[in-house]
C-alpha cells in the first residue's frame, strides 16, 4: 500500500495509523519509510529504526529503507555472491555510475518495498502480509512509482528489465497495490490531491483507493451560536474577549475546511475519509491508536 500526498499533510502519521489498524486485524504488517527521516521512530518514542525491520507492536514492524543498503542487497542477489557484490559495490566506477544513473535509487528503494510485500522474500527477514510505504510527497513520490516502468522500458532485456517489469506490474495491479493520498482540508493540499489523482491515472494507469483528509476541526458551534458570538465580539474584559475571538476564528476555520472538503469530494473519484484534528502538542503512540480507531470506523 502506497501512502503519498503533499508535504506536511501527515503522511507518516496516517501510514503509521493504517499500520496499527492492519496489525490489529491480524495482518503481519511493515511500515516503510524511504527518506531516512526516522519520523516513525519519533512517533513510537523509540530510537532510530534503520534498514532492518524492527517490531513496534505485535505484528507491526517498521523499516527505514536506505538506498545504498538496498543497492547492496540487490547486487548480492544478482551476482549470487557476497564477494563479487563486494568487488563491484566497492568499485568507484560503479559507485559513480549508479549515483549518476537517474532513478536508480528510486528503483532499488521501491524494489525493497516490493520484496517486503512478497511471501517468498529475496532478502533475509520476516514475511509480511502487507507493506505500507510512507512515500515521498507528490513529485518524488510519483517518480518513485514510475521508476520500475522507466527501467522496464529502457532496459529491454537483462535482469534489471525483468525485475523492473515484475515490480511495475505488481504496483499497477489493483489487487496487490493500493494507493492512499493524504490531504489537509486547505486550498493547496486539496488542489494537489486532485492533481495527484489525475497524474497517477494519466502517467501510471493507477487509481487512488482512498483519500484521507487529516486534521478536520470539530463542528462545534451552530450557526446561531456563531452569530451570537459575533454579536458579542469586542465586548467583555480582555481574557473573555480573547476567548470569544479564538472561538470565532476556529469556527471560521472549520467552515473553510468543510468547503475545501466539499470541493475535494466534488473533484475526485476516490472515496474520502476524514480524521479529526488532535489538539495535542506532540503526537505519540496513544494518539496513533486513536487515529487507528477513527480509521477503523471510516474504512
Amino acid at each position: 500500500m502506497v501512502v503519498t500526498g503533499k508535504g506536511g499533510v501527515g503522511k507518516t502519521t496516517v501510514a503509521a495509523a493504517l499500520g496499527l489498524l492492519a496489525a490489529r486485524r491480524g495482518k503481519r504488517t511493515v511500515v516503510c519509510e524511504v527518506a531516512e527521516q526516522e519520523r516513525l521512530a519519533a512517533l513510537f518514542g523509540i530510537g532510530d529504526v534503520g534498514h532492518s525491520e524492527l517490531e513496534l507492536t505485535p505484528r507491526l514492524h517498521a523499516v527505514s529503507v536506505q538506498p545504498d543498503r538496498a543497492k547492496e542487497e540487490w547486487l548480492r542477489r544478482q551476482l549470487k555472491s557476497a564477494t563479487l557484490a563486494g568487488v563491484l559495490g566497492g568499485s568507484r566506477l560503479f559507485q559513480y555510475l549508479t549515483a549518476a544513473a537517474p532513478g536508480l535509487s528510486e528503483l532499488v528503494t521501491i524494489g525493497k518495498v516490493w520484496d517486503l510485500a512478497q511471501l517468498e522474500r529475496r532478502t533475509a527477514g520476516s514475511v509480511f502480509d502487507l507493506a505500507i510505504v510512507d512515500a515521498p510527497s507528490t513529485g518524488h513520490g510519483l517518480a518513485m512509482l514510475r521508476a520500475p516502468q522507466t527501467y522496464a522500458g529502457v532496459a529491454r532485456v537483462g535482469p534489471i528489465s525483468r525485475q523492473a517489469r515484475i515490480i511495475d506490474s505488481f504496483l499497477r495491479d489493483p489487487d496487490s497495490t493500493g494507493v492512499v493520498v493524504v490531504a489537509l482540508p486547505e486550498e493547496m493540499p486539496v488542489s494537489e490531491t486532485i492533481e495527484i489523482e489525475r497524474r497517477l491515472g494519466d502517467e501510471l494507469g493507477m487509481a487512488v483507493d482512498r483519500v484521507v483528509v487529516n486534521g478536520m476541526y470539530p463542528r462545534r458551534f451552530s450557526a446561531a451560536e456563531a452569530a451570537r458570538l459575533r454579536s458579542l465580539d469586542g465586548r467583555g474584559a480582555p481574557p473573555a474577549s480573547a476567548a470569544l475571538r479564538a472561538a470565532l476564528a476556529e469556527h471560521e476555520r472549520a467552515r473553510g475546511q468543510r468547503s475545501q472538503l466539499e470541493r475535494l469530494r466534488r473533484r475526485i473519484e476516490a472515496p474520502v475519509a476524514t480524521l479529526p484534528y488532535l489538539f495535542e502538542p506532540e503526537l505519540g503512540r496513544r494518539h496513533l491508536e486513536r487515529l487507528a480507531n477513527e480509521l477503523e470506523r471510516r474504512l
Partner: protein
Amino acid sequence: MIGDWLERKEVCICAGSGGVGKTTTSAAIALGMAARGAKVAVLTIDPARRLASSLGLAELGNEERRVDARVDGELWAMMLDAKRTFDDLIEWHAPDERTRDAVLGNRIYQELSSAVAGSQEYMAMEKLHELHQEGRYDLLVLDTPPTRNALDFLDAPRRLSEFIDSRALQVFTSPGRLGLKILGRGTDITFSLMKRATGIDLLADLGEFFRSFADMTEGMRERAGRVNELLSDSRTAFVLVTSPRRDALEEAAYFHHRLMDAGLPFAGVVANRVHQAGAATDPTQLTRLLGEPLARKVIRTYEEERRLARRDRENLADLRRRLGRKPMIEVPHLQDDVHDLDGLRRMDEYLFAGLGQTGAE
C-alpha cells in the same frame, strides 16, 4: 524584519520542509518588496493554480509574467518547468543538432530531466542563475522545490560537476576499450560484473547517454561552478521557512547547520502558523455573557488554542536557542489559509511591519 534582511540583496532563497508555507512566504516577500518600490520576480514550483490566479494570472509558465498587484515597484512571477529548463540548457550547450537530438531523444535523459530527485533542484538554481545574469530585476525570490529532503538543491550543482569530472563519464566517452585501459586493471572485472548485474542493454543505453553528454560537459561544468558561486555570494540571502511543529523545526535546525557548514549567507527564520493565545480566560464573565453550554464550548476551544500556543512558544524558543539567537519572524496562524493577494497582504504586516518580530539582535 524582512526589509532589513534583504537590504542590498539580489537573491532571496526560501527553504524549508514541505507544507510549512514556503510558496506563500516567497510570494508574500516578493509582493512586499515590490510594494516598497523594487522590481521583483518570484520563481515558484508549486502547482497550485489558485496561487497563480490569485496573483492575477490564469497560469504560470516557464517565462516570467507581470502580476497586476497595484504596487509601486513591479511584481513578476513564473513557475519553473524543470524539464523545459533542462531542455533549454541542452539546446544551449549542444555543439550541433545531432548531439542535441541524441540527448533529447535518449530515454534515460527523458527520465532524468523530469522528476528524478535532484534535477528539479538543479534546474531551479539554473534558472535563478540565468535570471540573475540577465540583471532585469532588483530582487529574485526563489521558492525551493518541496523535496522531502529539503537540502538536495544545495548539493545539486556540486553533484553535477562531480559527475562530469568523474571517471565513469570518461569510461563511456573514451572510444572503445581505451577508456577501460585508462582506468587500469580491475576495470575489466568491474565491467563484466556490471553486465551481469544490469544487463548489457541498459549499460549500452547509459553509455550512449553519457557519450552524448560528453560534448557539452565543459560548458555545463562552468555553469555549475557559477551557480555555486551565486549561492554563496553576499548578495544572496537564505530565508528558512518553518512551522512550529516539531518535525519541521528539526529540519529547519538541520538545514541551518548545513547552511552554516557550507558558509552560505543565512538571513533569518520565518515561522508560519504560530498559534497565539492570551491569558487564561474568566469563566464567570463568559458564562454571564453566553450562558452555561455555549460558554463551556468557547472555553474549551480557547483552552485548546492556548495549549497549542504554549507548545509553539516552547518549540520556537528551543529553535532560537539551537540557532544561536538568529533573527526570527513569527506569522500567526491566520484565520483562513493564505492563497490570494489579500492573504499575502495580511502576511505583510508580520513580515515587513515588524509585528511578528522576535529574537533579532
